[in-house]
């Protein structure tokens, strides 16, 4: 009974350290100076997996969708379509009988608005997570004002020529006040004190934690993907900012009574970026070659049920995350092609 109660209180937060960072700018020796918070504060509390491979398509939407389903999805990265296989949110809600308010996604750009729910007939409609697109929310909140922030929605670093139109389960502006308990004015005023979209995502995530305390919260960071513009220094700034935001999120977990002592957090990039030396790419700028640097990355797990200070070098795959969450929370990710990571159990 006590175990069941503890399991129901258990919270999971997944953060994708995105979009796409190479080992050499993060946890490899020469990159560690870029992630001081994770190195000094988080890694001592963590189990760290040094060799996570992504064998799927290396586009941010499709790769993040694959992370949420535990199956390498093959959807068109630049289309606003749902994943083909059930997402972790659907397993979580259907198998554990959780309400809609218990699973949320905070995602960076328009392309991610269908990530909360698959089109799988045995799961799908009504069983997924609500998706908040903070920038879309900000643009909607600012519509009609003098400030023109339509530019916020032109945010697809991978393909500047196209931004999918929103449809499906996007967050409605009316929910700003109903769910987040924020007035439009307060929200827009606060947003303007922030310097980046990922800071806005963290703000929304913290607000969600305070107001809804979801059991499963998925946050997709995206600032790092400015690397596509070719400015190495801004890519590095993105990594440093994401490092700081991950630490701030973990601090927020500790300060929130609903989360402190109940939460396991996972941080992982959706994939890496191309090597400097692969002739098919342009180094850090893109993730197009499918070389080792672009497919190999890492994962950090910390919090309840995690052995601190452990480093695991055995290869795992990014699709192993969802079945591992299933083993932790008590649902069966039946359609996932991954397998539970034994070191997390």
């Amino acid at each position, binding site marked *: 009974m006590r175990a069941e109660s503890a399991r129901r209180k258990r919270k999971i937060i997944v953060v994708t350290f995105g979009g796409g960072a190479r080992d050499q700018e993060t946890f490899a020796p020469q990159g560690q100076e870029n992630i001081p918070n994770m190195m000094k504060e988080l890694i001592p509390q963590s189990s760290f997996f040094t060799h996570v491979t992504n064998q799927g398509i290396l586009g941010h939407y499709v790769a993040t969708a694959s992370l949420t389903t535990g199956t390498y999805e093959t959807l068109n990265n630049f289309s606003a379509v749902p994943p083909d296989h059930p997402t972790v949110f659907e397993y979580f809600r259907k198998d554990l009988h959780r309400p809609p308010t218990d699973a949320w996604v905070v995602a960076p750009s328009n392309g991610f608005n269908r990530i909360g729910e698959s089109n799988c007939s045995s799961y799908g409609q009504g069983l997924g997570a609500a998706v908040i697109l903070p920038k879309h929310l900000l643009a909607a909140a600012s519509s009609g004002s003098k400030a023109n922030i339509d530019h916020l929605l*032109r945010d697809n670093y991978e*393909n500047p020529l*196209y931004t999918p139109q929103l449809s499906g389960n996007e967050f409605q502006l009316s929910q700003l006040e109903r769910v987040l308990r924020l007035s439009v004015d307060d929200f827009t005023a606060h947003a303007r004190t922030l310097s980046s979209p990922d800071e806005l995502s963290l703000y929304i995530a913290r607000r969600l934690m305070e107001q809804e305390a979801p059991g499963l919260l998925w946050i997709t960071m995206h600032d790092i993907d400015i690397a596509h513009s070719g400015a190495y220094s801004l890519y590095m700034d993105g990594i440093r900012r994401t490092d700081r935001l991950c630490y701030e999120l973990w601090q927020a977990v500790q300060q929130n009574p609903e989360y402190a002592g109940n939460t396991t957090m996972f941080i992982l990039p959706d994939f890496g970026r191309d090597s400097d030396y692969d002739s098919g790419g*342009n180094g850090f700028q893109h993730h197009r070659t499918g070389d080792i640097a672009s497919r190999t990355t890492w994962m950090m797990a910390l919090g309840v049920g995690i052995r601190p200070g452990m480093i695991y070098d055995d290869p795992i795959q990014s699709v192993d995350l969802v079945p591992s969450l299933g083993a932790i929370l008590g649902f069966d990710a039946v359609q996932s092609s991954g397998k539970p990571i034994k070191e997390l159990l």
Partner: protein
Amino acid sequence: MEMNLPGDLPPQLQQAIGSGLLQRLPVTFQPFVHQQLSEWDFLFPNERRSVQRLLLYVNSLPPTQFNALFAPLLQLEDKMGVRTWQFSTTEQTILNASLLARSPYYQQWRQAVQNVFDASDAYALKTGASVARRRLVLLNIPAYLPVDKATAWTRWQGIGFVQPLDLSAAHASGTLAFLLFGEKAASPSLLQAAQQPDDHSPAQAWIIDAGDNLIRAALQDQAAAHSTSTPTLLGYKRLDTYRQNFSNEMNTMRRDLVDADSVYDRLRKVDVRPWCPPEASAPSIREFLRALYLSGNGAVIFGNSFVEWGASEALRRARPSLLTAQFDLRSKPKPFTGVAVFDNPDKVNPLPSVDDPQGSALDAQMLSLYIWLAALRFTEYQHDTVCICMAESIAEAYIVAPPQFSLQRNPRPLSIDTLRQQLKTWLA
């Protein structure tokens, strides 16, 4: 599929195409070939030679060898189910790229295509169709970009050596302008030394500038008739009108059209001629810039990205004897415009721009290495090419050179005039 061929295709090539060569090529090989042929008028001499060499080579193969060359690709196409795809054989589209990338056989497919090109290149080397010549890649990180002396060259991983420089002679004009145009009228300039006697195409020498000082110096030099050579000149700031109008088209079109290929298609047809400065008005350069801006590599956003990607594409497409690139300063992204990099940040946010010398210097250091790595992908630059990357703020150059280059590591600062003489000797 019938296609309209440009009138000035070499007769041999016309004959090969007339004999049905294109229809014999694997489906996924056809978009590249069709696109190259349809854009023949805009290709650089090297590209024309390369397409001609490839097509004449495969056309010359007896059926058994032809089949053997393409068999791996055809087998992969079967496995990938290409025939069931909505795949354009006439041009390279975003949909094509997406279909290929989503296939589990994508990496093998890439390798199989590369193998065909490698076979053609090997044949060209064997038959002497490819001529070796000395080349120079000359890069400059200007004085106002602060480079850290201790870490300036670590990314080059010891492939060359550090040479202290005495830049005092070049102080007034800037180092690159001094090297390229600072010669007394009677003596041939470095640019002239790079000119090949058998090839007077502007594509043989490129000067790419993230600012505009270097391009203005080049134009002044041309106007003063000091130089008979006419290099290709690309200046990020001089292309402001082109870039901003193109960017504006990109941003205003997006809402109207249903998919990326439609946007792409329309941007390929926009008349850019009114936006080109005189030095970029030649059809091949105009279209080179359009392709650069469409490629999504930051060339419409940051001057240093424009320089790196422009240089990489020039190396890939034109294989110049001399490529010169100079980096510049960019502004810091304004708060919350990090997401709006495809817009003009000054329009999006009224706050005044703030320079980012440290960030610009870091960008330039990384991107200068990338230019050299881009060169190394091609046989032409692997043996007889000198690469010099100068960092004016620390008065040093990093030099990568083959053993036959006469300049050796010297702890004493090398005068810029001596460097120029060495480079002229090398190219001559």
